[in-house]
């Protein structure tokens, strides 16, 4: 199969979405003539014009609000908040309005809104341009959250997001834009709430989000040579979360490591550990470990930043540690 970069897969999906449905339009900072900070909307303004690929003022609340309002009256907006770090600027529109409106108005309205954003450290973005706070949004009922982990998935999940009748927070790991992978041509969807098992194994379950999936996979392959079976699961969406796949794998292995670039406290992994404690306590054979960023803001210096981001060594150490429990 042909290979595309993660970025090319995003551009292709957006292009096709604009082509397929006249109600779809894009709105965000620098997504037009500039082509997006990470070039993930490259060429789309030239193809579809300023009305469908709208450069917005640096006004995050207006961006989300414009998405909500236009979605309610019949459009299918895909808006972009450049970095997930900017989300607190428009937190009200996102979590108080987009997420709650359907419920608080008695289920009467549909808000088919996709909110794309980027996350992740590794480019020297520091405290305000490099966080991975996707897990935070799990706390707010009413938002779906996609965290694509491969070029294949980003394209398929994007179509699912666009066709969903609810607000979807679509988080792209900015360190993955140049990652290549197989991407089918044409239209296909990846369903929400269906995790992908990236690598099968009998000894340890590793749940890994976004680019951490690749790191976990590298560790799993390395362990395989040593006769250790690591099962790597990419949840692909945090909400809905495929608890079934996660729990079933755990019932098999009895040991779990969760790898997520978010800060340590209230991490996505904390929720997974809680689910295991509540729903699979009889199968627990070892402490459930989280491999996360430490609980500090993203630091700037390359040395500090490298220390901050969970790496293969930390995943390896965590796997060895749970294996100590027979």
């Amino acid at each position, binding site marked *: 199969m042909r290979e595309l970069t993660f970025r090319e897969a995003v551009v292709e999906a957006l292009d096709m979405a604009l082509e397929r449905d006249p109600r779809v*339009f894009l709105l965000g900072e620098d997504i037009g003539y500039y082509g997006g900070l990470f070039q993930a909307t490259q060429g789309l303004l030239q193809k579809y014009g300023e*009305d469908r690929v709208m450069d*917005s*003022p640096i*006004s*995050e*609340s*207006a961006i*989300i*609000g*414009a*998405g*909500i*309002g*236009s*979605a*309610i*009256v*019949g*459009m299918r*907006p895909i808006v972009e908040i450049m970095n997930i770090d900017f989300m607190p600027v428009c937190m*009200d*529109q996102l979590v*108080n*309005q987009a997420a709650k*409106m*359907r*419920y*608080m*108005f*008695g*289920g*009467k*309205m*549909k*808000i088919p809104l996709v909110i794309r954003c980027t996350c992740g450290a590794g480019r020297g973005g520091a405290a305000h341009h490099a966080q991975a706070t996707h897990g935070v949004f799990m706390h707010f*009922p*009413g938002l*779906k959250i996609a965290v694509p982990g491969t070029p294949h998935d980003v394209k398929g999940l994007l179509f699912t997001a666009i066709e969903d*009748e*609810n607000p979807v927070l679509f988080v792209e790991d900015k360190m993955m834009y140049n990652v290549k992978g197989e991407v089918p041509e044409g239209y296909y969807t990846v369903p929400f709430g269906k995790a992908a098992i990236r690598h099968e194994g009998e000894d340890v379950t590793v749940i890994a989000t976004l680019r951490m999936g690749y790191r976990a996979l590298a560790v799993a392959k390395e362990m395989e040579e040593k006769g250790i079976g690591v099962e790597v699961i990419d949840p692909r969406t945090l909400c809905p979360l495929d608890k079934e796949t996660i729990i079933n794998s755990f019932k098999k292995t009895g040991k779990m490591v969760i790898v997520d670039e978010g800060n340590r406290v209230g991490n996505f992994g904390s929720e997974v550990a809680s689910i295991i404690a509540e729903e699979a306590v009889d199968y627990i054979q070892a402490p459930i470990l989280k491999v996360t960023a430490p609980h500090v803001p993203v630091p700037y210096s390359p040395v500090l930043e490298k220390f901050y981001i969970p790496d293969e060594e930390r995943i390896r150490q965590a796997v060895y540690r749970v294996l100590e429990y027979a």
Partner: protein
Amino acid sequence: MKASKSLMLEMLKKMLEVRYFEEKVVDQYARGAVPGLAHLYIGEEAVAVGACMNLTDEDYITSTHRGHGHCIAKGGELKPMMAELFGKKTGYCKGKGGSMHIAAFEKGILGAMGIVGSGGPIATGAALGIKRQKLDRVVICFFGDGASNEGATHEAMNFASLHKLPVIFVCENNLYGISVAQHRHQAIKDIAARAAGYNMPGLIVDGMDVLAVYEAVKEAVKRAKSGKGPTLIECKTYRFRGHHEGDPNLGARYRMKEEIAAWRKRCPIECLKDKLIKDKIAKQRELDEMEEDVKRRVEEAFVYAMESPFPNPEEALEDLFA
């Protein structure tokens, strides 16, 4: 063109509906019968009614925590509104929203938002949707002097004006942001002045004069529908009650009783009635009959709310996702 008799009577009827609806809430709140908060619109009726009289069910509004008046003016029915206040299953939002969160999509009421200033971006978005779908509709965004200090309001105005969107920003300047007087929360006297910063017209209107509001919004609707973009209309008005029911002495801790009394003399309903009689447009008996009819319908709405069932507790888990 002057408003016709039938239009003026319709305005009076709507203002009376708002007034008596709210009076009923006052009464019930005092009895401890209303479950949540209630921010009443008494005194400000001319703004919502004068504005919405220019709209059809196809047009949209966004409303605020002080939203009962907007909803009634836009065609919201008294029964499901009252039922919503009492948390009943028959309420507009099945008891999930309450006083501060009423929406009636079929009437173009996109929803009342409990967060100050949050309606601006959403109204602007609805206007963007109208423009893209080439619909002959407008959006009115109601907000207050308090919300005029919120960043989201300014983001929305800039965006709306930039794209010449069919939205009208109707500011209800009731002189207080909760308890803080306007001169203590902003350095300007006229919020309409802020329109200049977004290159849109900014008008000041007597918010106690329903006909003045009607005429101003009418022009703004015309402008919006002809693709010329938004207008900011500041309506100088006053709330006769406190910020919410239970606000001590109707707000007398932070404003003078004389001030409240002076504004009460400018009651928008009494002003319109006086005009109708003085100009011999309507007879007193006609107005009395109308008032009795409104009272009766508000009472019916109340009985309907009382007799309606509460939702089943498990319904708390429904309606999250489409």
